[in-house]
């Protein structure tokens, strides 16, 4: 019963971590380079998913359910965040007819 | 306001009760009704195979009648065209030449007789107007559908009764349609 | 008598004068009352050889700060000077023409007096710092609110300068507290043996920068002239007369006894700069046309001398410091007082537009002249003994520095007499002089008092030195 499945033996945990890091960096890049608020927000979701992957990976490899529970929390909270976020984006869109963050220049020092 | 009859239903805007607002009883009732219809006798007539019985006074496609000898009855008097509310009928009169007596009953005849079937409303006034009992609307023939505008104008080639029906006809009336018979029966009798 | 008296009475007076508002007579009465009261208290202390003149109450447990106040021979003359200069300033203000007297200014000056007493009597470093910082606020208020339109900028500069310096002092205090493992900030719980040489050096620099900016000594003086020129004269009098003495006091009671090694290591740099400041101040004062700026630079020059004396680290010099600081306080307050009267009357502060004031009021000319003489340090005025001792001390320290500082004797007479000549003598440049109504009785009495002090301490410097000298010497020999 408690035999370690094949995948845990043939694929080192590092591979998953690397994949997560790559996805995370892509997310960061998206946040940094894109101007469309929605796409920035999507990049954030991508980053969250990279984190989720990390948690699941560690959780599975370490055989500890906490990580997966955490992922559950992250997912739930991400959903709430998206709801609020999209409401805000829609609000902005009503105001400036765009979601381009570089058009947001009311506030400058 | 006093209702004149007791047939009209008074509309009330009272709030629906909880049971009514659930809609479920109403929905179930509706389902019952539809289910009842599910098992009802079907009213479909499978047309080419089965045909609906036509009314005796059905006004179908026009026909220009011939008399017992096969002569065209129409004298191109134009009363039908005058009577036509849709102005669907047009004609050109011509004089009968010697030797054509077997073709036309009177000295004058319609060289061209056209009915625009798009205009025609199949009201039957032409039939009523005709003093020579030349035009009738058949009760067993429907005006077919058209595929081109040229088909719409019915000339004499398609309106005039074919000779075969004359031969088989036993009498003036027997060669005619149900409509003919009906008209004769009802009020054309007195005219002769 | 409880030292808290000196705290409480001006505080009460501050509230009262705020309430009194524009009522000049009430303000005058308060001024005199507090002045006399303070002097009386101080006198009783001195008579009792400062036996009961101390108090130590726990104030802030969590930081180990005590409300420790004490009057002693060293701070005695500072306290007296505070009373006098505050009196002078308030006398000026409360005797202004009808409607120009402000309750808030009076209240702020009284508040300033509270903090000044706090600074001079504080036996706890944090309390010292606290009051030291707090003194800025009233001055800032008066200068910014009632100064010329340019005063706002000048005072904020002053404020930031002093804040900058005093924060270093704060660091120093905190360092002392931490490094010695002391449970409190009482000055008595520190001594120089706690600090190694290099640490003393750093601490010296931290404290010195605070005090030097306050005084101000030569490289840190750039705020001074503007503020003096743009502020209302009350605050100029206070700043020049007493606020800068806080720096002197700090040097005397904190830097010299606690960081002798630091003073020795770094003092020579600053003594040179101070001595240069003496010359620089004097030279600049000579070419100024704004009457306030002349006095401001003269003050810089004098304070440079005091600073050099402090850094010279000898008993003679320190005795001179005490004498000179008292003299300077009285003289400069008087000078500003009189010059403001003149400037008000002529409607300008430009020396070129003044002149011939003698014809308007001979009495005022005399008063002015006496203050001038005191400032030049002519013998028999109060400036002389202090300057003499200071120069002696500096000569002992380094002869070239002595010569540099000695130039003040000549140069101060040059610019001061130029001042006198331009204002009092010569041809009057308008008929304003004829309309001069006189100084007024209250001011006359007050000014006479100041003049009397100039002469009194010129003739009998021993009144001061008798109290202070032994105490000052112990500062050098205690450790």
């Amino acid at each position, binding site marked *: 019963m408690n035999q370690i499945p094949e*995948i845990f033996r043939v694929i080192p945990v590092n*591979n998953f*971590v690397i994949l997560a890091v790559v*996805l995370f960096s892509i997310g960061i890049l998206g946040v*940094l380079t894109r101007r469309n608020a929605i796409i920035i*927000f999507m990049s954030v979701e991508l980053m969250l998913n990279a984190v989720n992957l990390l948690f699941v990976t560690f959780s599975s*490899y370490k055989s500890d359910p906490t990580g*997966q529970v955490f992922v*559950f929390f992250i997912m739930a909270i991400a959903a709430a965040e998206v709801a609020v976020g999209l409401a805000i984006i829609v609000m902005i869109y009503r105001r400036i007819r765009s979601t381009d963050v570089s058009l947001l220049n009311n506030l400058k020092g | 306001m006093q209702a004149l009859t007791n047939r009209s239903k008074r509309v009330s805007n009272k709030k629906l009760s909880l049971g009514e607002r659930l809609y479920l009883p109403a929905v179930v009732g509706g389902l019952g009704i539809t289910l009842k219809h599910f098992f009802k006798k079907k009213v479909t007539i499978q047309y080419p195979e089965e045909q609906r019985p036509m009314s005796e006074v059905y006004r179908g496609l026009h026909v220009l009648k011939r008399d017992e000898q096969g002569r065209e009855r129409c004298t191109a008097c134009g009363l039908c065209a005058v009577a036509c509310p849709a102005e669907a009928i047009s004609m050109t009169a011509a004089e009968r030449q010697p030797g054509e007596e077997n073709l036309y009953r009177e000295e004058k005849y319609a060289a061209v007789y056209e009915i625009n079937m798009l205009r025609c409303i199949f009201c039957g006034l032409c039939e009523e107007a005709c003093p020579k009992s030349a035009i009738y609307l058949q009760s067993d023939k429907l005006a077919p559908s058209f595929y081109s505008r040229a088909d719409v104008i019915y000339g004499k080639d398609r309106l005039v009764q074919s000779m075969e029906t004359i031969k088989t006809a036993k009498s003036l009336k027997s060669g005619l349609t149900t409509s003919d018979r009906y008209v004769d029966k009802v009020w054309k009798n007195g005219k002769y | 008598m409880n030292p808290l008296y000196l705290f409480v009475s001006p505080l009460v007076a501050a509230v009262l004068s705020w309430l009194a508002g524009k009522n000049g007579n009430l303000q005058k009465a308060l001024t005199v009352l507090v002045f006399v009261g303070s002097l009386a208290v101080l006198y009783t202390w001195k008579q009792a050889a400062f036996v009961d003149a101390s108090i130590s109450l726990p104030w802030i447990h969590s930081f180990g700060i005590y409300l420790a106040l004490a009057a002693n021979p060293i701070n005695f003359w500072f306290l007296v000077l505070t009373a006098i200069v505050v009196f002078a300033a308030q006398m000026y203000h409360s005797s202004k023409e009808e409607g120009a007297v402000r309750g808030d200014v009076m209240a702020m000056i009284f508040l300033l007096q509270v903090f000044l007493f706090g600074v001079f009597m504080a036996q706890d470093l944090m309390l010292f710092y606290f009051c030291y910082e707090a003194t800025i606020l009233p001055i800032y208020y008066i200068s910014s609110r009632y100064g010329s339109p340019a005063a706002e900028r000048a005072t904020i500069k002053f404020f930031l300068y002093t804040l900058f310096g005093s924060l270093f002092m704060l660091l120093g205090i905190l360092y002392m507290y931490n490094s010695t493992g002391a449970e409190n900030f009482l000055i008595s719980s520190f001594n120089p043996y706690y600090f190694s040489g290099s640490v003393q050096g750093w601490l010296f620099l931290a404290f010195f920068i605070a005090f030097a900016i306050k005084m101000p000594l030569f490289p840190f003086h750039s705020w001074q002239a503007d503020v003096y020129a743009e502020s209302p004269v009350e605050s100029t009098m206070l700043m020049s007369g007493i606020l800068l003495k806080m720096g002197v006091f700090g040097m005397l009671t904190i830097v010299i006894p606690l960081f002798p090694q630091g003073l020795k290591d770094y003092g020579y740099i600053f003594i040179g700069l101070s001595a240069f400041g003496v010359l620089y101040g004097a030279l600049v004062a000579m070419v100024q046309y704004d009457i306030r700026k002349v006095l401001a630079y003269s003050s810089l020059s004098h304070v440079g001398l005091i600073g050099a004396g402090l850094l010279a680290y000898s008993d003679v010099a320190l005795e001179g410091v005490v004498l000179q600081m008292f003299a300077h306080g009285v003289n400069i307050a008087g000078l500003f007082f009189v010059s403001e009267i003149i400037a008000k009357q002529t409607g300008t502060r430009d020396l070129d537009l003044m002149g011939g004031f003698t014809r308007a009021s001979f009495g005022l000319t005399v008063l002015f002249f006496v203050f001038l003489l005191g400032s030049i340090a002519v013998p028999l005025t109060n400036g002389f003994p202090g300057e003499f001792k200071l120069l002696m001390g500096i000569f002992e320290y380094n002869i070239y520095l002595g010569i540099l500082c000695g130039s003040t004797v000549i140069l101060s007479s040059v610019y001061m007499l130029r001042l006198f000549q331009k204002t009092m003598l010569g041809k009057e440049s308008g008929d304003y002089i004829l309309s001069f109504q006189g100084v007024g009785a209250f001011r006359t009495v007050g000014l006479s008092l100041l003049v009397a002090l100039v002469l009194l301490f010129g003739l009998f410097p021993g009144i001061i030195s008798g109290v202070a000298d032994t105490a000052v010497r112990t500062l050098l020999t205690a450790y």
Partner: protein
Amino acid sequence: MVQNLFYFLSFLAVLSALMVILSKNPIHSVLYLILTFFTLSGHYILLNAQFLSIVNLIVYAGAIMVLFLFTIMFLNLKDDSFTGSRLFFHLGSGLVVFTLAGLIILKVATAPIAVADDAHFDSQIGMVENLGKVLYSKFLVPFELVSVLFLSAMVGAVMLGRREKGEKNF
């Protein structure tokens, strides 16, 4: 077999993630992001976390991304193109991020990471029963508190998204 699957999914994940941020059309980005989520769900299944994999689909692909798609369609966004003036910024940030990521990856690639051994391994941890037990016993309090978050988010989304009287635009 498993390895190939892993590499295939990873390749697809990275590719679609890249396309998310490179696509000009926001709709395409959303779709690529959904694809990424699918690949990640695949990874979760590989990792024996069935429950999360399906929850990932339901929550992310089924709810969150629908919301995104919905909003984008709602707003009828046009293509968003990279402009020249920001090109250097793009290049720069790309370079920085990739350098940093590269460094991290180099470090991580060889890092020893402790994993469970045979004796401690439990293949059931990713199953819903197990997760449910942990969630509802150990983490009950935070779980309940998440409801506060949802309530707050709900109120906020309604408050912000609601059209005010007199507002003309949709």
